[in-house]
């Protein structure tokens, strides 16, 4: 079924390189006006997926539709109304102005129009002073901004961004992200962002598609992925720790009761009785208290004691490492004042509380 909001739809996409299946995507759609991030580890097939979606590479099987069109007509239309920025953009040996105006010239704009639009976009992106510079003299951050300007000057219906910040230092990375947030969203109809950086995906995108080993594991809003990760990889990329392991004792009140080193923990998830599970939790969801406090009047379902192994300052916060049930290495994040009040220090004992809904059990292995 095709949604009217879907500007680009890919179905049954398979890409093989020498008999090796590198991409196997049943369906992925980009909606008008949204920024969709494709997040995944290295070699997950992200860039291949982008090239296929941008119709720059033909898949071994499957097809894409752009604005309801398919085949050559779709490819031609997409060529005229999209632009791409690659991780390592190529510049033609000339000035910044020449490179930024290239796409406009290909679309038949007059010299005057090209010059006006190039000046406007470069001014908007704060690179107006670079117009006459030889591209060979640009820094990494400047080059990526020029590449972004070159794509955005076209006001594309779809902007494809292939790891645009991967090769940059942290300052330039922040600047490019800001440009993507501030200008790309405004000038491009929809944005497809390829990234391996979860912070980038979760902070910029409306929806995130997680690609692992060439397959889409989950597609949803950052909140959906955060609250209901489909598997342990997504749990990890959304910032969860996966050090707790145990086996399912029983199902009770829609929760799984899992034995972890002799402690019973209530979790959400689906796994059969007796099966081995990994439990994902986020360090910020653990509530630490002094070891002598009791749990009887609290709504949190899980309570156990742990030993502090390390206290490390993390800006205004403290990251606390703990030895939890079954000797599992765990992590919690608390504010500086909480750390001071609880007098957290290595070898100290604390009680730990965590809601059942904050623990996600996934089949181990």
């Amino acid at each position, binding site marked *: 079924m095709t949604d009217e909001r879907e500007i680009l739809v890919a179905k049954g996409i398979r890409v093989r390189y020498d008999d090796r299946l590198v991409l196997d995507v049943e369906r992925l759609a980009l909606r008008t006006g949204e920024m969709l991030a494709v997040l995944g580890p290295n070699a997950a097939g992200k860039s291949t997926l982008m*090239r296929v979606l941008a119709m720059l590479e033909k898949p071994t099987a499957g097809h894409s539709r752009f604005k309801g069109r398919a085949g050559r007509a779709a490819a031609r239309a997409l060529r005229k109304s999209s632009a*791409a920025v690659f991780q390592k953009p*190529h510049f*033609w040996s*000339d*000035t910044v102005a020449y490179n930024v105006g*290239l*796409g406009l010239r290909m679309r038949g704009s007059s*010299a005057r129009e090209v010059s006006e639009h190039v000046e406007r976009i470069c001014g908007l992106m704060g690179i107006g002073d670079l117009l*006459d510079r030889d591209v060979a003299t640009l820094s990494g951050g400047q080059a990526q901004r020029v590449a972004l300007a070159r794509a955005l000057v076209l006001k594309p219906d779809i902007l494809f961004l292939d790891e645009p910040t991967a090769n940059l230092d942290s300052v330039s990375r922040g600047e490019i992200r800001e440009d993507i947030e501030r200008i790309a969203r405004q000038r491009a109809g929809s944005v497809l962002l390829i990234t391996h950086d979860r912070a980038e995906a979760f902070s910029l995108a409306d929806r995130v598609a997680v690609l692992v080993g060439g397959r889409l594991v989950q597609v949803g809003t950052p909140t959906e992925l955060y609250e209901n990760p489909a598997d342990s990889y997504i749990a990890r990329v959304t910032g969860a720790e996966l050090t707790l392991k145990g086996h399912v004792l029983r199902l009770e009140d829609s929760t799984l009761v899992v034995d972890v080193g002799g402690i019973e923990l209530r979790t959400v998830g689906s796994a059969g009785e007796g099966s081995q599970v990994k439990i994902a939790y986020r360090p910020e969801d653990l509530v630490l208290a002094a070891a002598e406090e009791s749990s009887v009047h609290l709504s949190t379902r899980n309570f156990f004691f742990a030993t502090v192994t390390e206290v490390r300052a993390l800006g205004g916060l403290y990251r606390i490492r703990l030895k939890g049930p079954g000797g599992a290495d765990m992590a919690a994040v608390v504010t500086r004042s909480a750390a001071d009040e609880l007098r957290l220090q290595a070898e100290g004992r604390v009680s730990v509380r965590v809601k059942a809904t904050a623990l996600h059990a996934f089949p181990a292995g």
Partner: protein
Amino acid sequence: MNPFAEALDLITAGDLYVWEVILRSIRISGSALAFAMLFGLPIGAAIGLSRFRLRRPVIALVNTGLALPPVVVGLAVFLLVSRSGPLGGLEILYSPAAMILAQAVIAGPYIAAVSLAAADSVPPDVRLQARALGAGPFRATLLQLREVRTSLVAAVAAGFGAIISEVGAVMIVGGNILGETRVMTTAIVLETRRGNFGVAVALGIVLLLVALYVNLLLLLLGRWSMRRPPTS
């Protein structure tokens, strides 16, 4: 008289015989170069930019063209255009047309081989980037070649250098006929044999200057194309 002093006299005084030979050489080699570019550049670019089976043997074959002995080319063209040859009906043997044909056959492989190496060095992401900005297949190819334009100019210069100084092929198919097919190289051979060292040296100097001038011109052309205004 010192041959060098005599040579300078002949050049500066505008000696009719010397200048006629010089201009004919440039006309013939220039025309041959134009024809060689017509097939050498597209062949070199096409092989250099594409990937296909048997590409390596094809490249080896093109590079072999660099080692073609001009006299052998001359002989082949002679047999081709002589009265009993397949192109005998054209009746171009011992005419500038036969010389242009022979020189084009010599320069073509030079241009093809050097432009092939240049096109081969274009990174594959150039085409991807060009396509991603909306270029059609032909435009994308031009944008790929734009990246190696200086090398393409060098390919043409190499082709010209190979034919302006060549003597064997033009001697065989042109016949060194006074006023018709006598060019600088064949005239130098003849005048040296005759003991007219002044004329030979004059033509030798001009030959060197022409080669130098053309290379400088092509070099400047390459530089100029690098600096053309951004919005052109």
